């Protein structure tokens, strides 16, 4: 190991200064004073493990990624030392991968140093402090397109239609309640055995309204007949339904 005995001790104290285990590894590798491609991975592993061990004696709370790296390096060291050829080959590959990672980090650190050495705007060189704004913005023109016009038309119509649908539609159908009231009031004033259709209200325009009113009036008639208020008669299936007051029955019966 080429590092002096004092170095690990000082590194323990500086562990917080490293940005992760790879950072420390790169620093240790650079201490070997050789090309990164030819560093001794074994030396590197031993140095790293020594640093971690030293740090653990002082502080137990070492971050997980430091310990994971230490465990992985311990595995790597065991593979590199094994006499078994296959195992050693896996170790060689892992060692090459580690050297490549260190090389990549080293390159990026060099790039950062190169950037840092550039004349930096606002530090080493200055641009014009008061640039002149000579451009004008003309917003007089309109941006119009046909799809926009169509979308607007649809949106307007849909909204208006939605507004209309919200209003409850007027009730135009003749209800049973209305039929009961009309039948009751007209009954006394009509001659015997009158067609049910003559009790329908006036001014029913659509066939739907006529059918609805007829059905309501029939239901009302059945209800009144049940209470004995009137009598119903039908001569033949689908023939006209006739209505008469109970007074009529008395006359007929008498």
């Amino acid at each position, binding site marked *: 190991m080429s590092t002096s005995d004092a170095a690990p001790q000082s590194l323990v104290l500086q562990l917080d200064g490293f940005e992760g285990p790879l950072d420390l590894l790169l620093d240790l590798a650079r201490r070997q004073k050789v090309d990164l491609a030819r560093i001794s991975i074994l030396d590197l592993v031993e140095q790293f493990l020594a640093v971690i061990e030293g740090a653990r004696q002082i502080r137990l709370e070492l971050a997980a990624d430091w310990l994971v790296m230490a465990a992985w390096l311990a595995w790597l060291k065991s593979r590199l030392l094994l006499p078994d050829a296959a195992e050693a080959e896996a170790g060689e590959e892992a060692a090459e991968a580690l050297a490549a990672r260190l090389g990549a980090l080293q390159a990026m650190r060099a790039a950062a140093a190169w950037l840092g050495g550039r004349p930096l705007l606002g530090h080493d060189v*200055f*641009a*014009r*402090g*008061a640039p*002149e704004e*000579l*451009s*004008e*913005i*003309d*917003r007089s*023109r*309109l*941006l*119009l*397109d*046909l799809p*926009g*016009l*169509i979308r*607007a*038309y*649809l*949106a*307007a*119509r*849909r*909204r*208006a*239609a*939605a*507004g*209309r*649908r919200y209003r409850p*539609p007027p009730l*135009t159908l003749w209800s049973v309640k209305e039929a009961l009231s009309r039948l009751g009031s007209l009954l006394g004033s009509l001659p015997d055995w009158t067609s049910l259709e003559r009790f329908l209200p006036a001014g029913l325009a659509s066939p*739907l309204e006529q*059918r609805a009113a007829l059905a309501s009036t029939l239901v009302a008639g059945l209800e009144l007949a049940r209470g004995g208020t009137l009598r119903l008669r039908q001569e033949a299936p689908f023939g006209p339904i006739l209505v008469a007051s109970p007074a009529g029955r008395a006359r007929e019966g008498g």
Partner: protein
Amino acid sequence: MMDDDSGADGLPEAHLRLAEALVFASAAPVQARALAQLLPEDTDADAVLAALRARYAGRGVELVEIAGGVQFRTAPDLAPLLRRVIAIPRRLPRAAMETLAIIAYHQPVTRPEIEEIRGAALSQATLDALLEAALIAPKGRKESPGRPTLWATTPAFLAQFGLPGLRDLPRREDLFVEPAAPADPPAEAPDA
């Protein structure tokens, strides 16, 4: 850093360089006093600035006195050449676009009719915006109580939308896939 090479104006070139850089990099006009702080003692900062102004006279950028200091400014005769006009067309507000669409499809149409179709009141500002853009124009009056103005689109409307004529607007029937939604008459009960 300060060499003693004197320029044609008899002042050290280094002083002129520093003044030039300082005025260039400063966000605000530079006072002679500020420059004097960077120059060796006993240097006449006013003289340095005067020499700098003389050097830039007639160039594309000139040293001008502004607010008690000096600043570089584009030469007045060049400013118009450099002025760029950036056209950023604006969109019509939604209410105006909807109103325009209704006028396009229902013309000639009165203001109350537009409001009925849109289901919302039509503000004078919206109408004014369309009139100002020359997209709509009055087209006579309706022979009904109050004789309200009838509105129609203009040739400028067709030009703006790239339409040969009003007949080239998409047909209204093709716009509404579901017939129920935009029914014009009050909704009729579903037929039996």
